[in-house]
């Protein structure tokens, strides 16, 4: 009989699927690259510097935290800090000083992620909390740094011609105070309110003028040319959010790699379109769903931040609720909130609701019958 041989014991299962956390994070980073290419094309090489600095800051901050907390430093190799660094940079305007994304990234990693126990334990999306921190601390820098696409410089009143958004005759020089399509949309809401107030005050002429301005800008925002610009990314905005085309390309890659599950992005985008149509226009059922989908951070958020695994529900029903809830909040903020864009805050708010959603959407086990209690 052959001589006995000893083996090391191990727990089942003894084989595993090829996906690893590192693989997932690498795939997400790869999927974000096309948008970076678009940003370089539209805003110049400066965005590369900002994104690079942001990533380096995120990784260094993670290393320092791990070192300080006496955890194995090779945890940084899981790649999640890189993703946070890229996303943070994508959420700032191209004209911000170089230290702003660095600070944001460091805050994202140290406060939003590592202070809660590191990967898997953070409650809110680190990159979005980093952005919220920057918005609260440096509001002027964060809203004055818009660059017009292909202009390689700050957005001005005359830059819209180059931007691909047609200047309407109705637009007077002082009309454009904001440099992103969403800022313009926010203006129209203000004009609508102003028109109503003017009418109540008996100034029907002033009301009519405001109405015309508002509907003129709306017509411009919903024009084919604007849609094309939004789709390609030829508009003012944060570094990584403008090019729907490139972001969708990245998302398709993630779907193909089975990294993205479809419920979160589809229900989020669906909700934005639905509620955008419902109340994103001058009156009910008058909104332009396509404009709401393509503008601001919806595409970036929908495919890369609503889908953040750590901070969204694990249950199937929970993912639907999260997507719809974030979509609704995005539109509520856009329409009635203090900011022109509500994407990032809507996701942060829903992040906070995630544990609750998971708890109340516990699926019925196989063969289990719903109890009437």
């Amino acid at each position, binding site marked *: *009989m052959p001589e006995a041989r000893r*083996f090391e014991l191990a727990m*089942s299962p*003894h*084989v595993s699927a090829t996906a690893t956390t590192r693989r*997932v994070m690498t795939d997400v980073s790869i999927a974000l690259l096309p948008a970076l290419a678009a940003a370089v094309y539209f805003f110049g090489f400066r965005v590369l510097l900002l994104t690079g600095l942001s990533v380096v800051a995120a990784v260094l901050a993670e290393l320092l935290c791990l070192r300080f907390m006496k955890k194995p430093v090779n945890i940084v190799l899981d790649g999640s800090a890189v993703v946070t660094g890229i996303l943070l940079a994508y959420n700032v305007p191209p004209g911000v000083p170089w230290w702003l994304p660095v600070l944001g990234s460091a805050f994202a990693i140290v406060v939003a992620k590592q202070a809660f126990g590191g990967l898997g334990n953070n409650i809110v999306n680190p990159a979005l909390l980093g952005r919220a921190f920057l918005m609260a601390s440096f509001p002027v820098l964060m809203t004055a740094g818009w660059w017009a696409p292909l202009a390689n410089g700050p957005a001005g009143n005359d830059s819209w011609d180059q931007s691909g958004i047609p200047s309407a005759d109705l637009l007077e020089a002082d009309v454009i105070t904001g440099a992103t399509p969403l800022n313009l949309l926010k203006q129209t809401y203000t004009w609508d309110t102003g028109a109503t107030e003017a009418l109540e005050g008996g100034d029907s002429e002033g009301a009519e003028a405001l109405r015309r301005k508002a509907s003129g800008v709306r017509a411009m925002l919903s024009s084919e040319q604007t849609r094309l610009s939004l789709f390609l990314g030829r508009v003012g905005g944060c570094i990584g959010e403008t090019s729907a085309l490139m972001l969708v390309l990245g998302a398709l890659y993630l779907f193909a790699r089975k990294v993205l599950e479809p419920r979160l992005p589809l229900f989020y985008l669906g909700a934005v379109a639905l509620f955008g149509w419902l109340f994103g226009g001058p009156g009910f059922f008058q909104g332009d769903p396509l404009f709401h989908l393509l503008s601001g951070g919806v595409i970036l958020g929908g495919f890369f931040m609503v889908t953040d695994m750590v901070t969204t529900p694990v249950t199937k029903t929970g993912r639907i609720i999260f997507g719809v809830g974030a979509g609704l909040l995005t539109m509520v903020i856009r329409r009635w909130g203090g900011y022109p864009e509500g994407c990032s805050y809507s996701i942060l708010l829903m992040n906070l609701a995630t544990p609750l959603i998971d708890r109340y959407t516990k699926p019925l086990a196989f063969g*289990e019958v719903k109890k009437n209690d």
Partner: protein
Amino acid sequence: MSRERSFSGGTHPPGNKELSRSREIVRIPAPDTVTVSLCTHLGAPSTPVVKPGDTVTFGQVIGERNGFISLPTHSPVGGKVLSVGEAPMPHRRMGPAVVISVTDRQETPVFEPLPNWRNLQASLIIDRIRDAGVCGMGGACFPTFVKLSPPQGKKIDMLIINGVECEPYLTADHRLMLENPTDVIEGMNILAMVLGVKDPCIGIEVNKPDAITLLRNAGVRVVPLAVSYPQGAEKQLIDAVCGRKVPAGGLPLDIGVVVQNVGTCAAVAHAVRDGMPSVSRITTVSGRGVSNPGNFHCVVGTPVSVLVEAAGGYTPDAERLISGGPMMGMAMYTDEAPVTKGTSGVLVLSGSEVRDSAEGPCIRCGKCVDACPVNLCPSLIAKASEYGNWTMAKDYGALNCMACGTCSFVCPAGRYLVQYIKRAQNEIRAAARSGKGA
């Protein structure tokens, strides 16, 4: 081509069945010494009734039934008892066993062959299946006669034969269906007669088209199933074949179904028609840690080392020895452990085949939730278990887990989800037993 039936959830581990599926079953003669486990079936171990020095004959009872859910143990050889005591076992470190020095390899009927079983009473056949020590050959080793004796008032109207063999690498059932369909069909008919079921069927995954064709041509009702793990699990198989769902915490017979493995069918045929005790089985020896994978027929008690030698011996990078399949099988620390009635396979995996043992934090990706065939949230149960919150683990349905390993397989963080959940199950059950409630 119509879409094959299946169940919801599940995953698709690489089959690796090509390593051994075309290898004909090779009969291995009993080695010089066999170590016969007294606890190969699920339930109480049988009580040894021989002592060292005793002479035993083929098929002699060496362990008697001990309680209702228990089976007798027969000697698979003629020879002399060397020792009665603890020996290394595939599914546990040590277990009760009888070691026999082999002198006679002759196999002759020990019961009266009953080729005319159709004319006999069902109870007589059930007794035979029990006395021959037949248990579930798919790996669970549940005493077969128990499944054939439904409690009063339960009507069985469906018999599903399990030819799924969803564990990667394993091809023993596949080869059995191809090489010995007569015994499988005979056993299926005996079981159908005993249960009073008119139209039994066999569920086979479409990765075994030759077996599907062969059995169909033999007049058997075959239900082809889409390939998905764990389709061979009883409740998932029933769902896939007929859409009935076994209630949580219930048994197949609660919805009038009995499931039996193809290997069990063959064992039933041998016991009833041929009067043979259940003392041997077909097992797959595979993995890239053996030189020449194959399928072997051997008596229980044959040391795993003998099987490995029959499969060409270890390759230089043999790293892990497993009893069963790679998803639910148990790692063995020694190849001295013997084949038991439930050893559906012996795998020797090379370093490149085994998973990375490092465990990362849960990234809440939800892959386990999507894949769980029982519709649980493994990641949440595991987290509750990790923090000792047994109440929450129970609330999330920990007790419904059948430990199929699908969640751990798909987990990108490599978490030992099954073990966390098993731990919770043990704690919840212990608390329930001690009356405190969980």
